[in-house]
């Protein structure tokens, strides 16, 4: 091969390596950007009068006077729309049976869409579920519903070889000549008047309870549950892990038994997380009966087992990196071994140990599989600290799955899901970031 080709190969090799790292950074960016962008939208968004009314009625927050005047304005514009609906309903009464039936089936979706946009229509009974008691609380959702009012979605099956394609048919054409016809242009023109959009900062998203399975309200129960589980896991795993690390670094004599113990540690680190869930169910709940069924305690114990190897490894590394001279100095002053460990070695290793602890805390907060069978419930309110021994809790990780995959209105509450994902990712990444910074500080200190 001539030298030119070898040089080209050499450079391409470098490019491949750099490319892989760039791809990883891009992947991080691609995953995080929509999560951050849409997640922020769960707190900062354009809210409608329905949002403010809901907050006032359900949580007792907001400026009652302003809401009253805005509601009055919105109601004035809505009254016009309601009038058109009732006019058309009367008109249908007077139609021929055939025409009336035809219009009725077309009218039903319009009425449903109006109700979904504005809340219960006049004359309707107050719905049971909170989700139907209010109209759209977010402006972009209101615009979506307006689209549903204006257009009918139809499917084009003309070409049987490819998948059917959707297309929109304006409803104004279908109702041309009736008393409903002006509604469509009216709704389009006066959407803002009817909904009173306003830039909203909803900090309550993090601290409010959820309403009607997260259709409205905040995610406090999930945040609290996540903290309970993660901190509970640390309470068990951290002391155990540090003591085990002390044993491995300061007392263990190299030999068969010690190597078995070390192997056990790495085996535990490699166990798939779902298997921890199975074990937690079979051992803590079905055998030990730490609680009747799922509970925060059972979940925290399961998570503790999962993070134990990480803590042990980090603590071992931190202890080994403490200069041997510290130990010599302390022993030389007539200190016992245990005293030396407690007063000199552990304090010096503490930043490193805490770094490992923080990373494990993040891992415990983010894991889902181990708590599915042991601690997590989909819908629930925040539990008291005294209930951790007996009750399960909602948790961010589990409810992200649940809301995104199993909620009956999953696509209607994407903003809540994004908000949850952003909260979870922020908690975990902030913990990791602080660990990274702490470690950088330590290495700087060691360099002097």
């Amino acid at each position, binding site marked *: *091969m*001539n030298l030119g080709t070898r040089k080209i190969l050499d450079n391409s090799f470098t490019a491949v390596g750099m490319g892989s790292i760039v791809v990883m950074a891009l992947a991080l960016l691609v995953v995080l950007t929509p999560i951050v962008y849409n997640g922020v939208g769960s707190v900062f968004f354009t809210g409608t009068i329905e949002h403010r009314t809901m907050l006032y009625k359900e949580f007792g927050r907001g400026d009652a006077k302003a809401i009253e005047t805005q509601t009055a304005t919105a109601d004035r514009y809505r009254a016009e729309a309601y009038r058109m609906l009732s006019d058309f309903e009367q008109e249908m009464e007077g139609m021929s049976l055939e025409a009336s039936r035809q219009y009725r089936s077309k009218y039903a979706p319009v009425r449903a869409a109006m109700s979904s946009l504005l809340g219960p229509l006049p004359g309707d009974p107050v719905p049971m579920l909170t989700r139907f008691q209010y109209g759209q609380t977010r402006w972009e959702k209101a615009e979506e519903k307006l689209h549903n009012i204006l257009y009918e979605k139809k499917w084009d099956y003309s070409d049987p070889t490819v998948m059917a394609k959707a297309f929109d048919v304006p409803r104004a054409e279908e109702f041309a000549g009736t008393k409903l016809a002006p509604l469509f242009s009216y709704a389009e023109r006066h959407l803002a008047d009817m909904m009173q959009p306003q830039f909203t900062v909803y900090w309550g998203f993090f601290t409010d309870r959820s309403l009607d399975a997260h259709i409205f309200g905040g995610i406090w129960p999930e945040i609290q549950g996540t903290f309970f589980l993660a901190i509970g896991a640390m309470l068990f795993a951290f002391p155990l892990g540090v003591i085990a690390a002390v044993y491995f670094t300061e007392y263990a004599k190299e030999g068969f038994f010690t190597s078995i113990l070390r192997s056990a540690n790495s085996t535990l680190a490699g166990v798939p997380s779902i*298997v921890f869930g199975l074990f937690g*169910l079979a051992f803590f709940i079905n055998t030990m009966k730490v609680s009747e069924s799922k509970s925060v305690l059972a979940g925290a114990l399961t998570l503790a087992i999962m993070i134990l190897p990480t803590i042990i490894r980090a603590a071992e590394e931190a202890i080994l990196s403490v200069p041997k001279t510290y130990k010599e100095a302390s022993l030389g002053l007539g200190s016992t071994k245990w005293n030396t460990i407690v007063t000199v070695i552990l304090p010096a290793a503490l930043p490193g140990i805490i770094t490992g602890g923080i990373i494990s805390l993040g891992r415990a907060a983010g894991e889902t599989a181990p708590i599915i069978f042991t601690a997590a419930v989909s819908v629930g309110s925040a539990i008291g600290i005294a209930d951790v021994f007996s009750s399960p809790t909602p948790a961010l990780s589990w409810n992200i799955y649940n809301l995104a995959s199993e909620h009956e209105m999953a696509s209607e509450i994407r903003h809540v899901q994004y908000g949850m994902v952003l909260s979870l990712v922020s908690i975990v990444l902030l913990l990791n970031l602080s660990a990274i910074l702490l470690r950088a500080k330590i290495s700087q200190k060691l360099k002097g």
Partner: protein
Amino acid sequence: MTEEVKTDGQRSSAFVVSPQKRKMQKLAKNAGETLLLGIASFVAIIVLFIFFFVAVDAIPYFQLRGFTEFFTSTGWYPADEPGEFGALAIIYGSAMVTFGSALLAVPMGIAAAVCLSDILPFSVRQYAKPVIEMLAAIPSVAFGFFALVILAPLLQSNGGPLLMWTWWILAAPFLLLAVIVAADLLSARFAQEENRKKMALLLQSLFGLLAVLVLYVVGTKLNAIEIITGTNALNVSIILSFMALPTIVSVAEDALQSVGRELREGSYALGATRAETLLKTVLPAASSGILAAVILGIMRALGETMVVWMASGNSSHIPDPWYNYLDAVRTLTATIAGDMGEADQVTGSERYHVLFAMGLLLLVISFFSNLVSERIVVRQRKILSGQ
């Protein structure tokens, strides 16, 4: 004088204690160490317990139904009466997404590890490492959410063009490289010294045309593909590969770092380029450590639950044709997670036990993978330290 003698007398025995006290000291020391040992053994006990309790709940299934159905049938109808528990399709699904993610993650991971350990200057590495750590830290459910809510609709609506562009971006540089190398090698073999450049140019244009043709034909083929469902094996494989990458990179980097500088210098001194040094000297020397990295990365993908549960489609059949990554699949982990909800109300049912059987299968695989990778790492360390 007398006073000094008195203090002297106290001094002389200051460090000698009574036999009883010495005995007590020994006793306390031994008791303390035993206590520490007990706590350190806790992990080993837990590992034993995990095997025991998962096996205890798995064995009743095999006692009742034997092994044949589980490993050879694709019929998974756990809710029927009597249920069918053929896990073959599910095992195949797990294998498929694991293999797919490994296919993406292994070359990228090794390339990135090499780049981190040998190519990037320290100042850049400082920023690259946290990126990898953050990628590792993102909770699996967040990746799952991304796969389900963003990637899946994207694949479903723009799958064909997406595949085409990916193919072009990825394949074009490699084909170009192949053209150059092939032309170089062939011209060196067949042409005389004076004609070599002309020959190389000719071959390059010939191969170049061929490469463009391949790019175009495959591209249009890919463009025409319509992806029926965005929640499929491809989606999951892509996401899993990014979850396995940090593990592969960090373990492989450790392996590369442990190869001494002398080896590299020896190769450079013989006039090798950096790529040649790394490919022919460093990578072979670190190969066993890299193998361990690959095993650990694969285990990460195999054991992952949330992503596959949310975005694999959860359809328990073997895709048609068997290599069709655009089809929905179902994996062991997702099955355990998804079915336990219905099964655990009737603790002790076959459906409950078969899920533990799946857990046991995962556990055994992870145990042996770990054992093997640990052995490999230890052996490499021994070889490199010259024992």
